[in-house]
């Protein structure tokens, strides 16, 4: 087990705490840079979606993981970013202008959504954000002069100072990687400065935060604005990646997917956003496989085990019927969320930390190492 001797306060401020970090993150970066040259276009496309989802994941970790404010409205922020890009691009405005503009506009909307958060908490805030998302969806469908309503809107290839960045190309992959890296850096910088600590303070005790001089209203609004702005940037990338946007792409289900990113990945650290995004984006190909391959496989397995061919055929049909049943995705999502909340509340990243610690401490690891000890019951908080 490594023991880091600290001789300087800078060591606690530094992001890469010791040489091991340099090696592992350096290797990760090398792999990510080499990826486009190693994998096929389908997988590369999936990874781009992982990046985009991970940016939203980072945004949600700032809002929910750090500040403790839940949101089921992030699909709407993504939509605002996407439509800002689509509209401004159609007006002949250049990418280097509408990319930050989308972030600023979405951030401003986020700040406005933050205001109800001053009075609402928990499930009421969730409902408020859902309501907000419905309103946005409705506006997108009705405001035809800008959004083309339900018909949707084409989004052309990015024109980066005269240089096209096609959505399937390597440059687009690196652009998304860059924005993700930037968002992660932003989140980590926040965490090591007063604002990030104020967020955490608000999450853990509003009363104490207030009496330590933290202006709850200001910081909640800031958290919403930052989270929304990041999601807006992800929205620009999303719009270009899809090359077509319409209101029904930004529904509650998408917001739920975003929440799942941090529930599955773990909301207490930025790593969770990436792990969760990988999981969520890869669920889709997995479900497709479940629909197409598993029934066939199951049927042939049944035949080899001595089942009559027509019975096996029936089995295959039933299995594919189940596989393509409407709502299967939602049901599987629900199941996954429940499993994670029950068995892995710290998400995949938490699991990873436990595995790491297991090997570091081997053979001394105790099962109860991560058990929370409840030392007292908090009652009548302010008395």
């Amino acid at each position, binding site marked *: 087990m490594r023991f880091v001797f600290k001789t300087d306060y800078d060591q*606690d401020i530094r992001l890469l705490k010791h040489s091991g970090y340099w090696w592992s993150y350096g290797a990760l970066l090398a792999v990510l840079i080499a990826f486009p040259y190693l994998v096929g276009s389908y997988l590369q496309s999936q990874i781009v979606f992982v990046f985009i989802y991970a940016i939203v994941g980072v945004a949600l970790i700032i809002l929910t993981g750090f500040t403790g404010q839940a949101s089921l409205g992030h699909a709407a922020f993504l939509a605002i970013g996407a439509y800002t890009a689509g509209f401004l691009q159609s007006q002949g405005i250049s990418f280097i202008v509408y990319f930050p503009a989308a972030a600023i506009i979405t951030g401003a909307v986020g700040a406005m959504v933050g205001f109800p958060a001053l009075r609402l908490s928990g499930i009421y805030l969730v409902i408020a954000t859902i309501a907000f998302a419905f309103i946005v969806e409705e506006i997108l469908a009705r405001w035809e002069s800008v959004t083309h309503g339900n018909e949707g809107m084409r989004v052309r290839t990015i024109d980066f100072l005269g240089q096209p960045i096609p959505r399937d190309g390597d440059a687009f992959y690196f652009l998304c990687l860059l924005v993700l890296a930037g968002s992660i850096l932003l989140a980590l910088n926040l965490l090591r400065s007063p*604002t990030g600590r104020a967020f955490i*303070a608000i999450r853990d005790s509003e009363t104490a*935060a207030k009496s330590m001089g933290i202006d709850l209203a200001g910081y909640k609004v800031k958290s919403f604005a930052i989270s929304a702005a990041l999601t807006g940037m992800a929205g620009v990338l999303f719009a270009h990646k899809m090359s077509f946007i319409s209101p029904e792409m930004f529904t509650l289900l998408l917001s739920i997917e975003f929440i799942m990113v941090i529930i599955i990945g773990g909301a207490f650290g930025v790593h969770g956003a990436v792990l969760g995004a990988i999981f969520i984006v890869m669920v889709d190909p997995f479900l497709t496989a479940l629909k197409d391959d598993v029934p066939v496989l199951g049927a042939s397995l049944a035949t080899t085990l001595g089942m009559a061919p027509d019975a096996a055929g029936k089995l295959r049909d039933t299995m594919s019927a189940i596989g393509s049943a409407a709502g299967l995705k939602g049901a599987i999502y629900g199941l996954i969320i429940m499993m994670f909340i029950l068995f892995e509340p710290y998400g995949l990243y938490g699991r990873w930390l436990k595995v790491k610690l297991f090997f570091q401490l081997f053979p001394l690891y105790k099962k109860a190492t991560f058990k929370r000890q409840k030392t*007292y019951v908090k009652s009548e908080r302010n008395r």
Partner: protein
Amino acid sequence: MSFFTVDGISLQFGGLKAVDSVSFSVEKGEIFTIIGPNGAGKTSIFNLISRLYDPTSGKLFFEGRDITEVPSHQIAKLGIARTFQNIELFENASMLANLLVGRHCHATTQLWQEILFLPSVRRAEKEHRRKVEEVIEFLDLQAYRDKLIAGLPYGVRKVVEVARALCSEPKLILLDEPSSGLNVEETDDMSFWIRDIRTDLGVTVLMVEHDMTLVNRVSDRVLALNYGKVLASGTPAEVQAHPDVIAAYLGA
């Protein structure tokens, strides 16, 4: 005018007068203790001072300034810090992070600077950290820097909360039952620290306390409260000899 003055303050919860025209003054450098049976309104007075509650009537003055209308998040900046009876720490953060939040009222950096983590932010952070280390040293918390609060024993949390309050470099510190839940040794340590806070750091102490040994050992003056009303005030001996106080404690 006194360093800190509570002038005829009242607080009403529905029909219940939790605090009933209470007045007292605390002088600079004093250790002033409020005692009283459970439900007497002691914590309510603290909540009024830290502006978590608005008084029904009455005024608060700190260093000659009327702070009755100051919003709660600006109280720390004026130099008043507090602890809570039931410990309000940031449970899922390290002790260091908790103490650094105590520095929040001295934060000068802007959001955009923090996002970029400019050299100015790094410098400010190191300065905050230096101050925090002084407090860690002062209260002997070296062993817990990177520990999550949720995993710390009750007695340590109690000290960490005092530490967090001290990190804001207050002029007046409010301690709500600093010894509750502590064992005899821990209570002893706490009484030494309270005196050191006053003597070494020059911070005026206003506290609520049940443990009369501790009260007698550290307090300069005591105020006894019952049903929101002041029963008596004066030196610890005077107050304990007061017939109303004896009656209140014997439940007569």
